[in-house]
């Protein structure tokens, strides 16, 4: 019964979305306020219906209702509650429901918080947003209905892939989708602006918080996925340049560029056409990500069982929205008036450089990801493009970006003084180089690129601090005045500095673990020892135990360093009951200098066990950096000037802080 309610509300949501797609846009066309106002209530109603539908599916999973096919395929009564809940989006149908739910959430947010938007713009935005919802709801109802029943109901379910039964992966998809779908806001606003043929700074003030929120979620989602791959897959890697990873990384790169170009548009009314284009492309890349992941056209280690037929439908949805928006863009973009002028050396110039480098690097990732597909289509030859390609193309584009990053926020709008900025950054650069030399002397030889990248990472980190110090006029004013200024700096300044510092920290982690990791593969018998990166591991044996829905073989290792006990590591191999599938749980000891990582391999006939031992220097900084970026985004989002709905109030009231 409850499943039918979910199914029924899903159909109702489709009906509401169809009305929401047509009525407000028609209202905007004929300037009828009542028709336009329909969009607001429709968006909220649609979201409410989707919540009911989502709760109905969650109920089916939590109560293990095995008369629902989706629950049978992806759940099991023995599964712990948290994974019964995460199982809702741990499968194709349920994750599509989560996707439209988030789409509805963003749509209703425009309706609720967008009262101060021009009525026609709001109506058009809601109409475009609803059209995306219509496409995905149709897709769900006709090809991937999560509420399909099965008769007779089996006694128990087939279970969720055990590798997905993991806390980090339970919350990875919601964040990732919030990011993907969040970019639909930028898309809807861009298309609405093109329909109206008018765009101004207020548009960017509206789009930026939404893009920022989406970007934050995507950042955290990608980081969670990477963290999960690191400890759950037992290979000790954190990024593989796998097509599925690239599918989430491309919208991130484009979204990061959008965030920065929207800034130029908001502050200086320049780069309008480019920002619109970027908004369209960012969401298109999100849709392409969905297509690549679900269609299975690319070989990916992260691809789960997929269905090519459904992939075609997603591809058509993507073609429709991207093609339609780009056609509209080609038709109307000429009508947008260009804004402020600026010199090449200026804040705007720096942001343009950021945009060029980010979008070009996004393009290289796109080429590397799609090339195997294109080549197979044309010549039939099967190839794979692996990490060497991406390292050779992506890193050279990132180095100038990292170098330019500390300069950007310090440059003045319109016309910047690069020499003055360089002087202010001299300390940061000096510290970075000095620090690198000291550390390089201590660690010994590594790849030649490593110290350069490490110095750049430190430069970005110190540059972010320099930015804050110079905004507070450190050294120019008395200490009391400096402290007063530090406290009253706008939150967006802190947000920028934090996000940039997060990048710097992440770069340090990437350099540390890529250039200086040690890996060892050994076979040990109980009582034998192995040594890695100064740690000595004593293998004490393997004990079997039982978990809630799996049996487990736990190995015990006493870890010592120079004879002093450090920790006990307990890596294990699990065999899940349903589906019967083994997983590897790595044993990880985290220290300030890096992670000691032990993964179990096969048991040897002679009584020993094969082991993979790693030492990953600084690897945690990668995820810490991502979390700092997320926090930076949140701090910036809490800025009064950026707050959703703030634009009009901020304009009517004289601002306490200087505009920049």
């Amino acid at each position: 019964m409850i499943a039918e309610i979910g199914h029924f509300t899903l159909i109702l949501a489709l009906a509401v979305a169809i009305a929401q797609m047509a009525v407000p846009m028609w209202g905007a066309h004929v300037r009828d306020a009542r028709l336009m106002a329909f969009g607001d209530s429709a968006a909220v109603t649609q979201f409410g219906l989707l919540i009911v539908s989502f709760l109905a599916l969650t109920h089916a999973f939590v109560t293990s209702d095995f008369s629902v096919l989706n629950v049978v395929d992806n759940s099991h009564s023995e599964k712990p509650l948290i994974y019964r809940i995460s199982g809702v989006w741990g499968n194709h149908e349920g994750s599509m429901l989560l996707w439209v739910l988030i789409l509805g959430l963003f749509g209703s947010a425009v309706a609720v918080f967008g009262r101060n938007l021009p009525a026609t713009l709001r109506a058009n935005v809601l109409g475009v947003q609803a059209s995306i919802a219509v496409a995905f709801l149709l897709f769900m109802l006709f090809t991937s209905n999560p509420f399909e029943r099965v008769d007779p109901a089996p006694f128990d379910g087939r279970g969720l892939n055990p590798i997905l039964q993991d806390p980090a992966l339970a919350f990875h998809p919601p964040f990732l989708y919030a990011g993907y779908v969040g970019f639909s806001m930028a898309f809807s606003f861009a298309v609405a602006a093109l329909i109206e043929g008018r765009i101004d700074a207020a548009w960017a003030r509206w789009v930026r918080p939404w893009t920022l929120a989406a970007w934050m979620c995507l950042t955290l989602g990608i980081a969670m996925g990477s963290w999960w791959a690191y400890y759950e897959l037992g290979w000790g890697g954190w990024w593989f340049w796998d097509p599925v990873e690239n599918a989430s990384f491309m919208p991130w790169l484009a979204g990061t560029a959008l965030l920065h170009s929207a800034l130029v548009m908001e502050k200086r009314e320049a780069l309008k056409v480019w920002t619109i284009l970027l908004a369209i492309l960012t969401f298109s890349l999100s849709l392409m990500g969905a297509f690549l992941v679900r269609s299975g056209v690319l070989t990916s280690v992260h691809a789960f069982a997929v269905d090519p037929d459904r992939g075609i439908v997603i591809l058509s949805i993507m073609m429709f929205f991207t093609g339609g928006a780009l056609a509209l863009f080609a038709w109307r973009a000429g009508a947008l008036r260009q804004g402020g002028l600026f010199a090449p050396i200026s804040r705007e110039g720096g942001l343009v450089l950021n945009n060029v480098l980010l979008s070009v690097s996004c393009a290289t990732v796109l080429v590397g990801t799609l090339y195997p597909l294109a080549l197979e289509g044309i010549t039939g030859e099967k190839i794979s493009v692996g990490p060497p390609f991406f390292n050779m193309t992506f890193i050279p584009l990132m180095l100038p970006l990292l170098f330019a990053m500390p300069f950007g926020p310090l440059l003045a709008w319109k016309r910047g003084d690069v020499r003055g900025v360089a002087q202010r950054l001299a300390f940061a650069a000096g510290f970075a180089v000095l620090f690198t030399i000291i550390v390089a002397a201590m660690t010994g030889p590594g790849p030649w690129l490593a110290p350069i990248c490490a110095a750049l990472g430190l430069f970005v980190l110190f540059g972010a601090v320099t930015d804050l110090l110079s905004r507070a006029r450190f050294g120019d004013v008395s200490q009391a005045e400096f402290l007063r200024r530090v406290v009253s700096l706008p939150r967006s300044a802190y947000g920028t500095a934090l996000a940039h510092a997060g990048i710097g920290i992440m770069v340090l982690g990437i350099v540390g673990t890529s250039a200086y990791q040690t890996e060892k593969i050994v076979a040990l018998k109980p009582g034998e020892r192995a040594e890695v990166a100064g740690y000595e591991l004593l293998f004490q044996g393997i004990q079997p135990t039982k978990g809630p829905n799996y049996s487990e073989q736990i190995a015990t290792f006493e870890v010592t360093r120079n004879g002093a006990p450090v920790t006990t590591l307990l890596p294990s191999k699990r065999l899940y009951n349903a589906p019967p599938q083994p997983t590897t749980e790595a044993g990880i000891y985290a220290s300030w200098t890096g992670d000691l990582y032990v993964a179990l391999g096969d048991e040897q006939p002679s009584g020993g066990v094969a082991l993979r031992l790693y030492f990953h220097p600084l690897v945690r900084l990668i995820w810490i950096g991502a979390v700092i970026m997320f926090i930076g985004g949140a701090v910036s989002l809490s800025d009064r000037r950026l707050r959703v709905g703030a634009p009009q109030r901020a304009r009517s009231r004289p601002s306490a802080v200087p505009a920049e």
Partner: protein
Amino acid sequence: MTRKQRRGFLIGSGVVILSIAAVLVMFAFRESIVFFHTPSDIAEKKIEAGKRFRLGGLVAEGSVQRGQGTTVQFAVTDTLARVNVSYTGILPDLFREGQGVVTEGKLGPDGSFVADTVLAKHDENYMPPEVAKSLEERGVKLGPGAQHKSGTGY
């Protein structure tokens, strides 16, 4: 600078960076592309020893020999031809006889394949598309598991 010159400068710098990227991409493609071959391909075409490629197929039944330290020997087959593979390292959890597998490495002088990577799949029903396709082309019937009708968004 006039508006026109500024725009020219912007577009120019964009074009410069884009062409640098294009050169990098071409260069990287020449250096780092890895071809995919099946055991039959190796029998038909002459593939020189020492060239890196991916070998895909099914792990031949009864071919896996473990336990000489950390080196594992197995054979990859597409039911028409088979190639012996040796791999030093830890096999992925879902490596099993009769399952699809993709390995990466080089042919040794004796015609056996020395793999340094064995690709892990997270899903026991998943079949790498190249493997499924080349098996299909050669008329090998895949079990129902190879086309499992459900997927996730990771």
